[in-house]
């Protein structure tokens, strides 16, 4: 069999920090970057005799996400204890949801290079984060418990992804979704959006192969690189007749390597958390209005605005881009032209300079003004590009448009310029009359040059042909 006959199977587990002011089971702040262990209390430090009290705001946010992905919300869910010893886990157990999560099923629709892909979800559950251990010098481990007890949702996908590109696109979509919903800030680098990947290979149609869990994937690039590396590694193992071992591997710059020791051999001894009653969802959480979601917006762009799936994908990739696009539409610019100018000119330039749409030096209203002028014919594409450069350099739309001037669409001025050009090129006129219509381009070029490129292209063409006909020898 050839190497290409392996099917890649990927499922992702995403831990996403909910945007609450306080922790999941106590009143401590969740602010990032405070002095170590300054945001702690007897509850999140696991002192004797303290009890968890659920933060309702965390549940409200989690329910928003669950509804946005169309998950099933059972009337009752249950918290469980996941037991293991580690210095950054103060109680010796993590409060999570195990047998009865608050959300089952659901799906996330992704658009990857213009193709729609629906990723089914297994579940979403609520849980608290652990603290942070830093293995420093002198053989010491430093523990910061500011993060201990921070509210998380874990979003578990079905093993439905077939490539690292699909995995990355799904993650981008999910992050866009939680940001649009105001559920999480989605910062990978601050750890508020973290991903583990389960990767296996199989022959198409065969049962699932043995999976390897990849951890330490702190950026979208690492997710892709780690999956690609792992797929190649497993393929090699399988094609040499070996067997993939079920294990956890860490992404370590260029390779995945097995986690040391027996950290993977945990028996977590889950059981229902007796300190919390079963979670019942409030009706107002289920009625809470949701904003337009990226997937819905993408469909609207295609169905109602007539954009291509690809353009719709680009314009909904994050909320800043779609907000920019919507602002252009609101300022009167047409959807297709706006999509073109935004996706090609502006984003092209931004990408070159490594900037994001939210850092654009061009305001959507200014770009829209430019687009409106191209649509009503007062700016040729050449003039519009000049005007865009001026916008980029910081000029206002009014100033930029005034500086490049308008298209010359005055018939008398055009006819005069045409007469001059035809008068100066008798040979080319004769060639035209002899049937060599290609010379029209030559004339247009000359006319444009005479008018500094501002001639209205359509009107020029019509008047030019009329003038040539008028000069045809009888």
């Amino acid at each position, binding site marked *: 069999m050839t190497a290409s006959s392996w099917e890649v199977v990927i499922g992702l587990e995403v831990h996403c920090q909910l945007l609450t002011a306080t922790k999941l089971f106590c009143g401590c702040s969740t602010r990032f970057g405070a002095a170590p262990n300054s945001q702690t209390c007897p509850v999140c430090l696991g002192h004797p005799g303290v009890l968890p009290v659920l933060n309702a705001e965390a549940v409200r946010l989690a329910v928003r996400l669950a509804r946005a992905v169309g998950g099933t919300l059972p009337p009752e869910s249950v918290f469980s204890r996941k037991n293991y010893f580690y210095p950054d886990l103060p109680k010796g157990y993590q409060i999570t949801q195990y047998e009865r999560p608050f959300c089952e099923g659901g799906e996330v629709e992704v658009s990857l290079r213009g193709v729609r892909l629906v990723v089914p979800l297994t579940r979403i559950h609520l849980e608290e984060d652990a603290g942070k251990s830093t293995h420093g010098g002198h053989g010491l481990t430093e523990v910061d418990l500011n993060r201990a007890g921070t509210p998380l949702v874990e979003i578990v996908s079905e093993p439905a992804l077939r490539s690292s590109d699909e995995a990355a696109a799904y993650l981008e979509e999910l992050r866009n979704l939680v940001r649009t919903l105001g559920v999480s800030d989605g910062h990978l680098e601050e750890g508020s959006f973290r991903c583990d990947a389960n990767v296996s290979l199989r022959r198409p149609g065969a049962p699932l192969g043995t999976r390897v869990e990849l951890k330490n994937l702190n950026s979208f690039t690492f997710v892709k690189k780690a999956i690609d590396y792992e797929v190649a590694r497993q393929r090699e193992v399988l094609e040499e007749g070996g067997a993939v071992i079920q294990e956890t591997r860490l992404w370590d710059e260029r390779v995945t390597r097995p986690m040391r020791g027996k950290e993977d051999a945990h028996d977590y*001894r889950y059981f229902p958390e007796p*300190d919390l009653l079963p979670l019942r969802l409030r009706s107002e959480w289920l009625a809470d209005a949701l904003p337009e979601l990226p997937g819905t917006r993408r469909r609207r762009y295609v169905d109602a605005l007539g954009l291509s799936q690809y353009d719709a994908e680009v314009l909904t990739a994050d909320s800043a881009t779609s907000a920019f696009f919507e602002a252009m539409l609101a300022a009167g610019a047409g959807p297709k032209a706006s999509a073109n100018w935004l996706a090609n000119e502006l984003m092209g330039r931004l990408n070159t300079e490594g900037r994001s749409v939210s850092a654009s030096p061009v305001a959507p209203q200014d770009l829209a003004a430019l687009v409106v002028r191209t649509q009503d014919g007062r700016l040729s594409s050449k003039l519009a590009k000049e005007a865009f450069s001026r916008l980029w350099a910081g000029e206002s739309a009014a100033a930029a448009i005034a500086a490049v001037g308008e298209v010359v669409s005055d018939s008398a001025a055009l006819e005069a310029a045409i007469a001059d050009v035809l008068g100066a090129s008798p040979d080319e006129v004769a060639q035209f009359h002899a049937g060599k219509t290609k010379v029209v381009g030559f004339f247009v070029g000359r006319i444009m040059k005479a008018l500094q490129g501002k001639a209205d292209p359509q009107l020029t063409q019509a008047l030019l042909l009329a003038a040539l006909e008028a000069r045809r020898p009888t």
Partner: protein
Amino acid sequence: MSGAPHGGSALAAVEAALSALGDDPCHAFLEVDHDGARRRATALDAGPALPLRGHVLAVKDNLAVAGLRCTAGSRLLADYVPGHTATAVERLVAQGAVILGKTNLDEFGMGSSTEASAFGPTLNPRALDRIPGGSSGGSAAAVAAGVCRLALGSDTGGSIRQPAAYCGVVGLKPTWGAVSRFGLVAYASSLDTVGPMAPTVAEAMAAFRAMRGPDPRDATARERPLGSGPSAPASIKGLRVGVAEGWAAAAGLHPGVREAVARAADRLASAGADVRAVALPEPDAALAAYYVLAPAEASSNLARYDGVRYGARVPAPDLLGMYERTRSAGFGPEVRRRVLLGTFTLSAGYKDAYYGRAQGVRAAVRAAFLQCLAGVDVVLAPTVPGPAPRLGELTDPVQLYLLDVFTIGPSLAGLPALHVPTGAADGLPVGVQLLGAPFAEETLALAGEILERGGP
């Protein structure tokens, strides 16, 4: 409460308590806060009258009081001083009670004799060669010795009722969730309750009423749900009392206890109650389920004592070694036994056979109790199989576990249960246990007050 003791003077009450305590010959206390108690009493006497002013309170040492050591009877927490105070304690203090000190207990509440305290046993003030029961043995002894008229205990499988029985005092185990557990060092959270011990039902109930109700720091503390059965009857007349016949006839039951139950039934009947026989679930299955479930929860609840953040730490070259040495040195044999047992019964491959099955038994026990209590207002039952055993007499853990055979079922069912002393057998206190539907504490008190009044 039946009149404030010491004319409502807090300081007089504290001085009387300290004088009655002497050098604590029964070793009821692990710490006595002489100065704090006097200071607080003096301040109280200068302030407005409060309902519990003049009441001295002994607090079981698994309940946190800010600034006082909270050892839970464990070497591991010998020097642990919490910054928080248990809600139950806070509410009594807010009504004017003065904390005298912290009382001895079996380590983390795991035991039936207070012999499993890391700091030595407590003696029974009624007979110094006897155990006071456990795990709230120190609190029971403090009340029985006349040091104070109010003590707090905790009851997971009998730890208030059983020592109350051996020491001849009143002990109330409230409905699970009726009194906040905030500040109670957890043993088995789904069973743990905080309750009062006192010389009289009225005093115990006054404390219970002050402590009960929801608490923003305990998500499981709650009010009696509206429409959850009849409210407390106003009178004993017509109160439906069921006598747990099978239990009262159990093999091995001391004749003195059997007689106490029979006499209590007669007393309630002659006071106008409608007494009949009822069948309670056999206690053996409940006992077995308890010794799977409670250790399972304990194995998780005690995981936090790892030497990392507070409490004793025994250093070692690596992390696992530090955990092993700290916990091996810090926990006594009974705690180690239960932690290991609980870890085992929750392990993959055994969880369904032990933990899962025990949960099933618990649900069946609860259903059987509730069914029985649908037909009667109160069930009358033995609290313990007999009078207090001698210190050191019971060495096999299972013999000790059997002392709780009648108290564990109601714990599994989450029911309120009241021990009332009714007399003596072989010169030692005996009494009975009154059980009710969830949140029926007031009904139990009604019957309990009839019994403690004595008479025919």
